[in-house]
Every structure is written in C-alpha cells, then in structure tokens.
C-alpha cells in the first residue's frame, strides 16, 4: 500500500529559516511519491506546531510523518508522542535533521536548501518503508537472586531486602562469609574482620526477606530480564537443617579428622562432619562424603549416635529447587591463583613459603596456630620474614595474570605492620616493584609501616627462593636502587599471589549469557557509565567478579548493584524496545553466526516447523528474544542470507535512504 506521508518543515525561528529556504523545501518535498501534505511552521515543536501535525494526521489520514527540524536526539520523542496522540503509530515518524546538519553549518542558502531537500527525501524514503511498531511488555518477578555469599553478596542481599524485596543467596560452601571470613584484620583501620563481618552474616540470616541456600549451586538459568527461571542444586548436607541445633558434638566426636581444612587453606585438618568455622552461618555442619568413614566403608555412624537431635541423615539426596527471579546479581568473588608456574619461589618445596592468605590464617586466633606466628615446618618463631609482591600479577608472559591484583600492596603493609607490632624482633623485608596505594588513608598506612615500624622495603624483585638443608630459606633478590644483588636468609617467605575470579564464573556466565573478558572477569555494560550492570539485561555485578577490589570498594559496588536491581524490581512491567532484530525463518540457516556476535544472548535456536511454497519441514532457526535484544544490529550483518533484520532500521529502509541521498 502506498503511504500517505505528511512533511512538516520547521523554521526553528531563524535557526533554520535564516539559511534554508523553507518554502522551497516544502515545495520540493511535496513532489515526492507518497507525499500528500507538506507545510512549514515557525516552531514545529511548539504546541501550535504539534497541533498542525495532529490535525494533518487526522484530516489527511496520514500513514507517515516526516519532520524536517532539529536533531532527532532533541525532539524525536516529542513528535512521536504527538503522532501517537493523533492516532498514528509513533514509529511512523522520521526526522530529517536540517538544523545541526544543515542550517548551523552551512552558509550558502542554495546549497543548504538543496541539502535540506535531500535529507528530507531520505526521511521520506525511509518512512515509506516504516511499519507500525509496538513496544512489548514483560512482567517482572519481584524477587532477586544473589549468586555468592561473600561480603559482596551479603551486602547486596541486605540492601535489596531493605527495599522490601525477596532475595535469595546461593552459596557454594556450607557457610556464607566468603573470603572476608578468612581474613584476620582489615586495612587500613586494622579492625578485626570477623568482628565486622559476623554481624552482617547474622543480619542476612535473620532477615525474613532473605533466603540462604548454602552448600548449593546454580544449575540452570533460563528466561530473561524480569523473568528468569533458575534451578538451584541444594547438595546433600547429610544433616537435617531443621533438626540440627548446632551443638557441635558430632564434630568433636567424629573419628576421622584427617580432611584438609579448606577454611584454613589446608594448613591443618578438620573432621569429616564439619562447619567451616566457628561463626558459620548457618551453624549446621555438613558431612564431607569423600572423607567420611561411614560413606567410605559403611561402618562408623558415630555422629548419628551422638546427635541428640537426630539430625544426621546419611540418606539425604541432592535437591533441585526451581525459583523465578526478576534480577540476578553475580557476586562470586575470587580465589588466589595456583602457583604451579612459579617454581622459583619454592612454594611447593617448603612449607615455610606461604601465600598471604595462609598468613592470614596463621595470624588469626582461630587459625591453625591459634594466632601464633610460627613456621609451619618446625613451629619455631621466625626471625626474618620476606614478603614478595606481584607473584603472578602484572605478568604478560603467560604464566600469570596481566592485571594488577590491587589489594596486595595494602595487605602486605598490614601484615608487615602487624608482625612488627606483635613481634618487634622479627625483621620484615618486602620486595616490591611498585607500591600502589591509591585510596583514602592508604598511603599514610603504608608509610606507617616504613616510618613507624621500620619495615624494610626494597625496590626490586626476588629471582628465586632456595630452601636450605638447615631449614632456612635463601632469598635471591635485587635492590634496584642500590643496583646490587641481595642474597638473604629468611625463615618465612610470604607470597602476594595474584587473585583471579572464582573458577566457577565461566560456567555461571555461560548460563547467564553474561559476557566475560579474557581474564574471566565479568564485563560491564559500560566501563565507565554502567559499571555494575552486565550487558545482559537484568544481570548485575557485585564485588571482585567484575574486577579486583578491596572490601570498601566491594561493599560500595554491592550497594550499587543492589540499587540497580531494586530499580528493576520496582517496576511492574518492562517496556521492551520495539526496534529489535527479527529472524525470517524462511531464510534462516540456523548457523549460529548471529548468536556468536549478540552481546546480549538474545538469540537462541529452536527447531520450528517452517512452511512455505513447497516447504514443510522442521528445522533449526534463530529466535530473537525481544526482551533481551537491544537493537544494535550486529546480527543483521553477521547473517549472510539477510534473514536477520532490524525493525526501525531495516535493510530496505537504510538502502532507501542511501538511494535517496545518492539520487
């Protein structure tokens, strides 16, 4: 059907009319095919101007409107709403930008007028091919899921719950608390980690809006923003959570105490039935079936016998819980890298070469040494300690990570200071490449270590650490300031190992179709302007899952992620952008090329029955989820057969504009 198009040329006072012969533009555009109405006015965006458009739409039964005026970024919405009020689909309006692109930059009236006509023709050509579009609506499930129960996840959940929404935390380990629960003290204030974390954990568990799924993992995610369906696997705890009182007798009586303690980084062992640490939440133990005598041999059952509450259940099975969510926050945190590639530091050869996280456990009163600083080999107090920075960070040789882990400089200063404070006779040396302390009170903190505690900071790296026969360690380093090699004895060496995203994140990102970078950190929707959102709508990022962070940064980002999630949950319905991609299943090859370039995971494949002249078969075709599609058009070009097209910016529309411009 031929469109009935109305053209409205705006003078914009003298902004346009001074350089463009507006009357001439009207006259020329009136000759274009399909144009049944053309007029000009002082200010099209004014009430009177809009009334003119509305009136023409009604009187001339316009099916398309072209406004030649300022940039569409200025008034496209205005004119679309105007059209909608007059009964025309708002997406049947196109703007020819004859102010920013014509009158404001050209001086010659003839030339400017001619260009205005051409831009008007392009808009007419485009609008001739426009089709009415309707923004879709999708429902929002008012419940959020937080993946990961560390400080990031806890903070996000607390903030979301505080706004009145239900929120579930899925935590893989038996207790929430995460990495922070393993720390002894926190920089730069040196307050005790447990003292500030435990209240948050208790708060999370007590909050009636928050449901904790500990010892659980996300198994499957489907759906899209506002309407995710998630399967959560609750692993068999072998302890009935409703019956257990947390008395701890089972752990005491368990005869098998040979399992390495994850919480203490393998520095000591725990019982087969265990809670990771004393303040664990929930305070309900789990049976580690790989180490439990009952599960291994069938004989034992001591815990069951001693449990007064009868909570032990050897028969318990994994359970799948399916729940719907409107928003998902990823807070899966980090671990430190494996040091297999760094043989030179003798981490595998000597128990006295440890990571900083192990040192945290050693320094902690609840740790394997009850807080006494001692060597793990002979339990003697060390006299000389060496800290090595950037172990695996800032490495572009493929052995480690190319990025800076950000937290090591500060925690090493903390460790050095705490040791010098408690054990003033221990010499502490730190080998560093750079000391990076950008943060409130951070540099002051580092300087205290040097100035008040006389920690020996040496600019230079350690080449290797050699364990000696006498049990000591020789550190071969360099002092780049003095330009001399250093060979020193140490009793303990502490490695500031790089941090890396939790290895599970790959699997999780795939399930969420959230994009991930080469270092396995989740990608933000915009590095600067949307730092806590994933490009995949409805997925938010909290904590180190997005990039290295310390605790205060993590907490602020957790709050920001919560606010973004709340903003989404507060809506009843989501209006979806109608300018989305559409697949023509007749032409679709089902080759997956489009899905490979979609940044939003909006394209999936279904076996659909395709019917056409002479064709009736079931075949794999692309399906665009318009709630997820943001309308970038990457898929439309990736598709060789042109089966994928973008509504509002269709191939034929753009070609029509090209033709009109080149005419």
């Amino acid at each position: 059907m031929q469109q009935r198009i109305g053209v409205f040329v705006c003078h914009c006072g003298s902004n346009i009319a001074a350089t463009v012969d507006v009357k001439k533009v009207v006259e020329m555009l009136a000759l274009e095919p399909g144009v049944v109405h053309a007029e000009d006015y002082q200010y099209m965006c004014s009430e009177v101007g809009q009334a003119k458009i509305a009136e023409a739409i009604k009187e001339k039964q316009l099916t398309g409107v072209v406004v030649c005026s300022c940039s569409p970024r200025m008034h496209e919405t205005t004119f679309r709403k105007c059209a909608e009020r007059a009964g025309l689909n708002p997406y049947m309006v196109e703007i020819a930008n004859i102010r920013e692109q014509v009158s404001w930059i050209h001086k010659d009236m003839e030339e400017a007028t001619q260009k205005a006509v051409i831009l008007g023709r392009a808009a007419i050509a485009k609008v001739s091919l426009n089709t009415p579009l309707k923004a879709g609506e999708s429902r929002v499930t008012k419940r959020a899921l937080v993946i990961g129960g560390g400080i990031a996840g806890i903070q996000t959940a607390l903030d979301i719950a505080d706004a009145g929404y239900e929120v579930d935390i899925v935590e893989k380990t038996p207790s929430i608390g995460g990495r922070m629960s393993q720390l002894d003290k926190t920089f730069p204030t040196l307050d005790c980690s447990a003292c500030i974390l435990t209240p948050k954990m208790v708060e999370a568990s007590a909050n009636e809006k928050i449901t904790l799924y500990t010892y659980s993992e996300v198994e499957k995610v489907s759906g899209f923003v506002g309407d995710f369906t998630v399967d959560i696997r609750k692993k068999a705890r072998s302890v009935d959570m409703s019956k257990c009182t947390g008395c701890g007798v089972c752990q005491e009586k368990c005869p098998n105490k040979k399992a390495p303690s994850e919480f203490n980084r393998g520095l000591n062992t725990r019982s087969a039935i265990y809670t990771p640490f004393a303040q664990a939440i929930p305070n309900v133990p789990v049976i580690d079936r790989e180490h439990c005598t009952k599960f291994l041999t069938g004989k034992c059952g001591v815990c069951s016998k001693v449990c007064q509450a009868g909570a032990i259940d050897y028969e318990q099975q994994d359970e799948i819980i399916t729940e719907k969510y409107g928003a998902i926050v990823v807070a899966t945190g980090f671990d430190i890298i494996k040091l297999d590639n760094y043989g030179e530091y003798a981490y595998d050869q000597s128990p006295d070469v440890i990571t900083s996280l192990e040192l945290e456990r050693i320094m902690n009163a609840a740790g394997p040494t009850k807080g006494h600083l001692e060597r793990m080999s002979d339990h003697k107090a060390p006299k000389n300690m060496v800290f090595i920075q950037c172990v695996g960070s800032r490495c572009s040789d493929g052995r480690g990570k190319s990025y800076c882990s950000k937290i090591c400089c500060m925690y090493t200063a903390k460790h050095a200071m705490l040791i010098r404070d408690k054990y003033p006779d221990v010499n502490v040396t730190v080998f560093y490449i750079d000391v990076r302390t950008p943060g409130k009170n951070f540099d002051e903190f580092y300087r205290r270590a040097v100035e008040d505690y006389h920690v020996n900071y040496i600019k230079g790296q350690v080449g290797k650490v050699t364990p000696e026969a006498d049990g000591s360690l020789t550190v071969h380093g360099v002092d780049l300031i003095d330009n001399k090699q250093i060979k020193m004895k140490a009793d303990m060496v502490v490695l500031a190992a790089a941090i890396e995203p939790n290895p599970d994140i790959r699997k999780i990102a795939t399930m969420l179709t959230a994009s991930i970078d080469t270092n396995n950190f989740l990608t933000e929707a915009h590095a600067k302007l949307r730092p806590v959102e994933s490009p995949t709508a409805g997925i938010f990022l909290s904590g180190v899952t997005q990039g290295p962070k310390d605790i205060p940064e993590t907490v602020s980002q957790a709050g920001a992620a919560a606010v973004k999630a709340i903003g989404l949950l507060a809506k009843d319905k989501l209006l979806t952008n109608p300018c989305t991609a559409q697949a023509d299943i007749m032409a679709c090859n089902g080759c997956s090329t489009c899905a490979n370039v979609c940044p939003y995971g909006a394209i999936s494949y279904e076996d659909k029955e395709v019917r056409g002249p002479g064709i009736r078969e079931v075949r794999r075709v692309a399906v665009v989820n318009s709630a997820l599609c943001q309308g970038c058009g990457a898929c439309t070009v990736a598709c060789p057969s042109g089966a994928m097209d973008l509504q509002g910016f269709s191939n034929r529309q753009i070609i029509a504009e090209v033709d009109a411009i080149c005419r």
Partner: protein
Amino acid sequence: MQELINKAKELLANGTVVRVLGWRAGDLSYNPEPAFFETEEDLQKFVYDGFCGANLSKYMIEASKLDGKTLVFLKPCDTYSFNQLIKEHRVDREKAYIVGVGCRGKLDIDKIKEQGIKGIESVEGTELDGPDTLTIKTLYGDKTCSYASAMLGRCHVCKGKEHMIADEIIGESKDTKDAERFDAVKAVEAMSPEERFNFFQKELRKCIRCNACRNVCPACSCRKCVFDSNKFDSAQKANVDSFEEKMFHVIRAFHVAGRCTDCGECSRVCPQGIQLHLFNRKFIKDINEYYGEFQAGADIEARGPLTNYTFDDVEPSIVKERG
C-alpha cells in the same frame, strides 16, 4: 578403489549406513559425477580416480535431512568443509559415516586441453596409485602429459594430507603443494590500483552469473541467497552493469570470509575460468595477517575471525597505510 567399494558394501550390508555418497563413473573417462548409491548393484558404477575432484561435503547438507546414516567419502581438503558445516549446524555428524579417502592431487581436464590435446577418447593413469604420467588417447593420436601438469590449481597449494575428521581412512594421501598459497594474491597486490582494476574488470567481465561458484561452495549454503532474494533489493540474474559482477563476487567473498576453507571448488567449476580463489584467498591472507593464522574448518570450536575481535585489532586505515 576396490577397497572403498568393499567398505561401502560392508557398511550397507551391516546396516551401518543406508546410502553411500561418492562418485559415479562418467561416460567419458574424465567426467565422473557425485552420486548416491543405495545398493550393492549401484556400486558397480562407483569410481574413485583423479577426476573425482568434487567436494562432497555440500551434498551432506541434504543427506543430513534424510533418515539413516550416509557413508561419505571425503578427501583431506574436503574434511575442512565438512567441519565448517558441522560448526554451522548445517550437517549432522551423527548422520555421517566418514571415510577419508587418499588423494594425490585431482585432475582438471581443461589443464590437459590447454596443452593442445583435443578429441580425448580416454585418459589413463588417473587412479590413486597410478603413474606420474597420464596417457591420453585422442581422435588425433596418442598423447602424454605429467600428472602434476594436469592437476587442478588448488592442488598446487595443497593444505596437506591430513583428514580433519573421519571415522576411518582408506588410502594414502600425498601433499602436492609445490607453490605458495598466496603468491597469486601477492602478485595482484603488487600491481598498481589501475592495473588491479583492469585485471579484475577483465576477469569479472567473463562472469555469466551462472552461480556455479556459489552453488558448489560448501560455505555458500544459504537456504536463500541474498542475490536470489529481495532483502537488500539485491536480486540479480544477470550482470547488466559491470557493477553487478563486482557486487556479487565481493559480497560473496565477504559472506564466506572466515568460513571459506579454500577448497577451491569455485575456481574448479567456473565455466569461464575466472580465478575466483583470488577473492577468497585475499580475505584469508588478510585474516592471517591481521588477526592471526586461521584455517576455517580445522577446529570446530575456534571462533570465526569475523565473529570475533580483540581490543587491539588493526584499524581499517591499515588498508591505506600498507599502500
């Protein structure tokens, strides 16, 4: 060849496959055709010799829609195409029983005719384990030529004798590479823009838009080609203006860029002898130079270069900078 027939018979007999995709002997000694065989009797006409150049991968798109498994014979270079088709979900691996066949380079009858040999009655010595010299009986007397001189252009830049995918391999293959793959592209690149323009203008002017290059191409497997549809107002059936030849061949090359395995079928089938591989190989060369070595079809898991990126990719201005 008998070994291949025996294998086909065996697999048909034991029900592993319900049909065999191979080559049927032609009525001249150089024109075997791709064909399906369903019975032992059919297989009497099965042939595998130097003229069996056709890449059978593409036929597996249709065969994958049929019930039951198809035994398909693939030469080493064909297996790249098959892999690429698996990657694009166009063939079903489960529906194929792949026998990798040996190859010592495939023959091009036009290469023989170019040597002035006419009225060919028979060509002998084309079998896999045949001699290095072909004996050609013609209406105008007997002739000989070396096997290598009669090989398809693509065989001179052979990708190697390894099959990328196969259930089993029968017959020895030979790497027939005796020229550099990108030499022809480099030669064009070395010309001045005017010379390049004239060169391609002359080559493409020969194009009759028969679509043989497209239809034989395993990467050009679109259900509906843009040049047959009106999605871009681009349907063309003839090259009315020289622009349309360029449009067709540039866009075709672009659509298969990063997917083209360089199987050389396009150049083999062009009735006008247009060196179509000059387009595809140009993209392959650019991709290798700009985004790292990439061989389509070598690795099913590898991300295609045009559906991938790195932050530090070269800018399009490289085209100007390299001069």
